[in-house]
């Protein structure tokens, strides 16, 4: 099972000929992901690495290859358009890696997605990994920029805003011998397509996922909403971490969404609510997997 993607998911990459997109498309191919198409306007008919056909439009790529998921690597000024194009082509899962999209653009995209058949993950996110069963998790589905080899197939679901903190958690889990069902990076922007709560709900419904790590940070109330939902609905043990306890108020900490705006979106306030909702909060980022073992009784 796993969520959103599995070994058979057919993936296309928008912006496959840019240096960033090409590099990560290559790494996904090496990981064993079913990368079936690329899209770069004006380069239709060419092939990526001599194997993956490139199309001018997303709808051509979908019609020809049956891709159901897209990874977007196009530069910020064109990213909103790329998301809308994927939606128009009926792509079920749109994963936008691009960092730096104007908030006004995302505000409009978010409206357009309402009532569509597409789910957006990101933007400004590391993407998703459902690890494979081969050596160093080879054969899995990797959409985005995460290092595939640190994963291991297993039963822990990981959801996070931050890329490197996700890798940190995954690495800790794998080192302790616990694999992952799916790892989802939802991104560090203030407006994103998929929330912590959305992912918790999917993990809760996924038979393969037995326990969950939820990583958040300062800014907004998404982690708090997810925790409150989990308290009432989630049957699986959860460990959490919130970054930014030492961040000064009013400053944007790298991620566009990581900013303390008031009393409620500080790390301290979020950790307190997570704990009240029965989530095992890790004291430090070094102890994310250890905290899960406590919650999970392992």
């Amino acid at each position, binding site marked *: 099972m796993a969520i959103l993607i599995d070994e058979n998911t057919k993936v296309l990459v928008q912006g496959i000929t840019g240096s960033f997109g090409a590099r990560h498309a290559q790494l996904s191919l090496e990981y064993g992901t079913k990368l079936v198409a690329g899209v770069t306007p004006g380069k239709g008919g060419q092939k990526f690495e001599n194997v993956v056909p490139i199309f001018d439009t997303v709808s051509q790529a979908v019609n020809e290859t049956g891709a159901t998921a897209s990874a977007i690597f196009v530069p910020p*000024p064109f990213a909103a358009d790329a998301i809308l194009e994927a939606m128009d082509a009926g792509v079920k899962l749109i994963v936008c890696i691009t960092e730096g999209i104007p908030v006004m653009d995302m505000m409009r995209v*978010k409206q357009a997605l309402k009532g569509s058949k597409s789910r957006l993950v990101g933007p400004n996110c590391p993407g998703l990994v459902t690890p494979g069963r081969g050596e160093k998790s080879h054969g899995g589905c990797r959409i985005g920029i995460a*290092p595939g080899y640190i994963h291991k197939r297993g039963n822990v679901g990981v959801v996070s805003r931050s890329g490197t903190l996700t890798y940190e958690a995954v690495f800790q889990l794998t080192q302790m011998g616990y694999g992952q069902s799916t790892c989802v990076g939802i991104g560090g922007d203030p407006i994103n397509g998929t929330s912590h709560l959305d992912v918790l709900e999917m993990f809760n419904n996924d038979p393969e996922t037995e326990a969950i790590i939820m990583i958040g940070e300062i800014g907004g109330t998404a982690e708090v909403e997810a925790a409150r939902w989990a308290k009432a609905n989630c049957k699986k043990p959860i460990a959490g971490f919130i970054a*930014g306890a030492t961040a000064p108020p009013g400053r944007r900490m*790298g991620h*566009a969404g990581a900013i303390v705006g008031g009393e409620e979106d500080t790390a301290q306030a979020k950790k307190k609510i997570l704990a009240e909702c029965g989530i095992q909060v890790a004291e430090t*980022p070094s102890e994310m997997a250890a905290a899960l073992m406590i919650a999970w009784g392992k």
Partner: protein
Amino acid sequence: MNIHEYQAKELFDRFQVPSPKGKVASSPEEAAAAAKEFAGAKLVIKAQVHAGGRGKGHFKNGFKGGVHLIESPEQAAEFAGKMLNETLVTVQTGEEGRLVRKVMIAEAVDITHEYYLAILMDRATCAPIIVASTAGGMSIEDVAHDTPEKIFRQVVHPLLGLQAYEIRKISAELGLSGDIAKQFGKLLSNLYKLFVQCDCSMLEINPLVTTPDGRVLALDAKFGFDDNALYRHPDIVAMRDKEEEDPREVAASEYDLNYIGLDGNIACLVNGAGLAMATMDIIKHYGGEPANFLDVGGGASKEQVTAAFKIILGDPNVKGILINIFGGIMDCNVIAEGVIAAAKETGLPIPLVVRLEGNNVEMGKATLAASGLDIVAADTMADGAQKIVKAVG
């Protein structure tokens, strides 16, 4: 990015948001000319710095106050002479103060009533939200805390934009009527256009005032711009005043580094914003105080690492450095080589702890060990944080 008061006035003028008459001046002569132009009105002269608390501040030359009433063009010139190219110290500038390079001559308006009006990008609804209150002129956080019933909120549909009925609702909540309500409606409508067209993240007018002669004016404003959208607003980028910013942050931005200076003594250099925040947190957890937030990004080059090192070492408070890199895709050895090159170029006068993990990590660690530099290796984040806290003492 912040802008000066006179620049806010320029934006208001461009979008026809009424504000008191005013003109910026860079010399006593220009100040006098501006005062002459507005003859007949009661006028003030205001030092242009980003920091608040100007009125109660003092200049290092002994002149008191960054805001003064002026009676004549001669006095405008005299006060401008005492403010321009002098350093103003306020509660927000710290002891070093800020150099005043421009002053504004503005109309001092009489006030009938003060209101609060703001437009923000609301995360919860993913839409612009208008916040209005009859309790203007004071901190909106205090109003929200003490008298929450005095705050009115209206979410605006992102695609439909601000509607006439929404303006009427807000106007009614503020108790406005007749011509004042009409003027307010026009002001709010234009303010919303400014918010959207300039990609603002926040636009706060506090206070918005009504005057005895029947005008509605934006008296003081705070702007926040979406950094991600600045690429399509060269006119707003041109308003940036680097002299007003932390020089360390200006230097960092030139190398595409995300740096924020703090007050502690343990510097950190990390890849990824989440990990960078978490590294600061873990330093604090083990009893240290972080000196900065620094995210070198996913694909940091040797040049960036060197620049980051120089910025860190330029901070006299820094007594130790923790480098924390999870090289998922990046080769740890490349990072190790970057660190060594940087340390050799800048020298290494203080303890350095390096925690490397990820791709080609064994090679990276070997490179660091063979460098001959006094670098302490750490295995985990916790190990690294404990080691640097201990080294700094």
